[in-house]
């Protein structure tokens, strides 16, 4: 065991041999973090940017001293001239690294969570969301049947727009195969040796009128890396969260004017039994074993929770913030982002006990959070 740890840290050094530049020299905005005293680490904020303008960016809030830094990727990686890329779609922390899915750049960026230095940029066509087990990172991708990977990326002609899940070895960042899932897969979560992938069918509005939204969750066995089951929920599925206790939560955007947005539960301990929890879900996040969401009901924003299939609520006075992203540090400390007019920088807002503490300017469309 001791030997293993030694080896791991040695390997890590080999991967990233250059002396780390400290991000403590970065300047930013100081905000009040007295409500979260005792916590160290960071809250990463991924700004999606506007598609086609290469304006994805990474911000972070240092939890111990309350410094909010914008554009951290660009500041810490001046050698990556083009910056983070186009359309940041997901961010997740694994160990001491953060993995950032940059959708329209076709890249998964791996950075040090301590100093934001780039350690790898992995090619994945049209990547969407990411999840991990101990060995692999799993990335959902819209570009499925158009693409074949045999060491090189080969674009093949196909009329089948089904998506894929790509598997990347965490150790050496190599793409290790893919599996076809449903249409335009989005969120993904790992539980008990299985991957749960939400299929949206989000291109349906632009394709032929008889092409409908996808309603399914693909369940993949991680060991064989094959789809073993397809669960039917509702139209236009989006995010997937695992609480680590056998509950998988899936959100849906619904269909505008027809089907309301909603959140569903898959009970992995009960043969993947599917049940609907609630309607009206705008933004959602998981913290520990509880899933949190904010939705608009009859024109007012309400905070709801679900733990082990039991519904609850939390009070939040959004105070004019139009929620675009959500992060929950604990039940009392909640971050809500606002995308503003979607083409200019938005804001990140901290709520303590349901009321707004502060608001800070982020990048364009701050939509995704990760806690390190």
């Amino acid at each position, binding site marked *: 065991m001791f030997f293993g740890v030694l080896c791991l840290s040695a390997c890590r050094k080999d991967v990233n041999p250059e002396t780390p530049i400290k991000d403590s020299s970065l300047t930013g905005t100081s905000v009040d973090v007295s409500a979260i005293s005792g916590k160290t680490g960071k809250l990463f904020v991924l700004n999606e940017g506007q598609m*086609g*303008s*290469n*304006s994805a*960016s990474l911000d972070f809030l240092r939890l111990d001293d309350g410094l909010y830094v914008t*554009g951290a990727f660009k500041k810490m990686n001046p050698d990556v*001239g*083009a*910056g*983070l*890329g*186009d359309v940041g779609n997901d961010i997740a922390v694994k160990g001491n690294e953060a993995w950032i899915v*940059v959708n*329209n*750049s*076709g*890249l998964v960026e791996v950075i040090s969570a301590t100093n934001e230095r780039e350690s790898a*940029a992995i*090619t*994945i*066509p*049209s990547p969407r969301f990411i999840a991990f087990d101990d060995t692999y990172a799993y990335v959902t991708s*819209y*570009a499925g049947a*158009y*693409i074949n990977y045999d060491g*090189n*990326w080969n*674009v*093949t*002609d*196909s*009329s089948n*727009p089904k998506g894929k899940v790509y598997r990347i070895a965490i150790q050496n960042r190599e793409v290790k195969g893919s599996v076809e899932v449903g249409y335009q897969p989005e969120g993904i979560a790992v539980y008990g040796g299985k991957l749960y992938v939400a299929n949206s069918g989000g*291109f*349906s*509005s*632009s*394709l*032929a*009128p008889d092409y409908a939204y996808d309603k399914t969750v693909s369940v993949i066995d991680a060991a064989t890396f094959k789809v073993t089951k397809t669960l039917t929920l509702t139209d236009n599925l989006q995010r997937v969260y695992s609480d680590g206790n056998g509950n998988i939560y899936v959100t849906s*955007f619904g269909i*505008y*004017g*027809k089907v309301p*947005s909603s959140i569903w539960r898959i009970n992995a301990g009960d043969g993947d039994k599917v049940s609907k929890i609630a309607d009206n879900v*705008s*933004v959602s996040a998981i913290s520990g074993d509880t899933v949190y969401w904010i939705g*608009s009901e009859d*024109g007012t924003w309400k905070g709801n929770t679900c733990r082990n299939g039991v519904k609850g609520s939390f009070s939040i006075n959004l105070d004019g913030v*139009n*929620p675009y992203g959500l992060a929950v540090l604990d039940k009392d400390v909640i971050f809500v982002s606002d*995308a*503003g*007019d*979607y*083409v*200019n*920088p938005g804001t990140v807002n901290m709520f303590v006990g349901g009321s707004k503490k502060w608001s800070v*300017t982020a990048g364009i469309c701050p939509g995704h959070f990760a806690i390190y």
Partner: protein
Amino acid sequence: MQSISIAVISLIVSVSGSPVAQEADTLEASAVFSVKYRPVVRAAEEVYLGGGVTAPARVSDVIRRFTGVQLKDYGGVGGLKTVNVRSLGSEHTGIFLDGIQVDNAQNMQVDLGRFSTDGIGRVSLFNGQKSRRLQTAKEYASGTAIHLDSSVPELPDGCAGRVRVRGGSFGTINPSVGWDKRLGPVILSTSAEFMLSGGRYRYRFFDTTLVRENGDIRSLRAEARLFGRTRGGDWRLRLYGYGSERGFPGPVIRRATGFPFSAERQADQDMFLQGGWNQEWHPRFATSVKFKYSNNYTHYNTHAEKNPMAMPYDVHYRQQSGYLSLAHSYIPAGSWSVDLSCDIQHNSLASDAGYFVTPRRTSFTGVLAARFACEKFRAAAHLAYTGAWDRFKNPDAGGWSRRNTYRDSWIPSVSLFYKPLEWLEADAYAKRSYRLPSFNDLYYTRIGNSSLVPESALQFGADIRASFKGWEIRISPYYNRVSDKIVALPTASQFRWTMLNIGTVDITGLDAKAGGSLKVGSVNLTAVGRYTFQLALDHSDPDGLTYGNQSPYIPRHSGGVELEARWKVLCFSWSSTFTGVRWSRTANIPDYCIKPWTVSDASVSIHLKHLVAEVAIGNIFNRQYQIVQGYPMPGTSVMLSLEYNW
């Protein structure tokens, strides 16, 4: 590069007065004729195209040097080129071909890069209100206007022809032929033009040099025009066909190696038939009838099978429009004239896109205009009314809907002209105009908002001109306010966008222009300098983050210099254009700052009796620059042109 000579010629012409005005002055009933022919205010810019290879190939090349005009250029031969005059937005600029608007109800963007200068005799820009007799009602209804007027061939031998070839950088070859013939009282003018361009060019992207791909274009234009005279009148007819197939190279972004930026292709087939008849029934009464039918087909495909990052989208659109205009003009007293013009138009858009809402629009525009003109003073007042009935077929609702579908607006304007001294003149205008929401604004799949009201533009401007011995100086201050600006915004549900009337922009600016000509020995030298200062500030929301910031893509300072030297059969010209610091977003922060640029072009041409040849060098210092963020412009290019005419 080639337009220098044209611009200089225009300046000289405008100094000595327009040919029409000169003609009118020689006539006896000068009071009546001054009302008849003189525009109340002068064009802000007016370029006479002599035709031939030394005219710029595209109308966009003429307009990009105009004072106060921002040409939004996505780069390359096939890239979209739209014009924004005095920061009002391209939707407020009407493009008129022989008085008939070239419109696009789908998105209100007219691509000026597609317009050939072949057969165009004059390009003019009006910031205020153009006011002449017998205008169509639509000519009174747009905020600012660019007028393209046909040249009528002069055929002393009864017949003329020309063969022209241009070609050079980017793998461009552009042959054209023209043939004109007098058929009794009627003149027939025909022309055809083919263009092929590979569209490849090198550009810098941070520390690498890349080549622009998928920017190729093929296009074919063919048209026939007829010009005829009646007793006291004239008529013209134009049949136009255009087909093109092009790639869009896409924005330059960070992208994984092995994947293209874009594989998008678009094919267009456009045709129109338009005509007009002006008739003077009596020295005091005249009418004009104009009509147009147009049919535009577009096939757009993102080719996701070649670019896995693209959304698969393969869609066809067909836009049709029918238009009829009737104008009357009456001269009740020597220096007065009164006009009444009415236009009717019908637009439709069909598509096979998923969940497509099929829109139709019938619009009416009516104008009452009064004009007074004497030697030193002219004045005009206009009141236009425009109303549009929309209906749309909603596949979800299963039928035609007429909800929220009548929009109307009143468009008043006044113009004054005063010439206190022989060398000094001034004009001023005030106008309030509106632009209707486009079909995309209203009905775009799941984004459109059918309750939009028209976006309004309030404009005030003045123009002071002083001229002496062939030199002229113009100073033109202005103030514009755009309100109820149509902006795309998300709804309470973040994934549903909608269009709203929320923005307000205040624009304060100053255009200045000076130029003239000089003869040194046997060399004729001409020079023009232009400068524009513009503050286009966001005043939408006093609590907003971007309140008081400069509008995207509007430089505070811009300008240019054009020089020309003519010696015997040789002509040398030089042009430099400067655009100051801009931002790609209303958030004026360093991340979105676009560097200033200066680009210089030069050309040399030789003019023989039947032969004209030109070498033109674009971007002579190989400056790397972007007009639209993410769309690099080409470096140095060379174009050779040769024309033989008989």
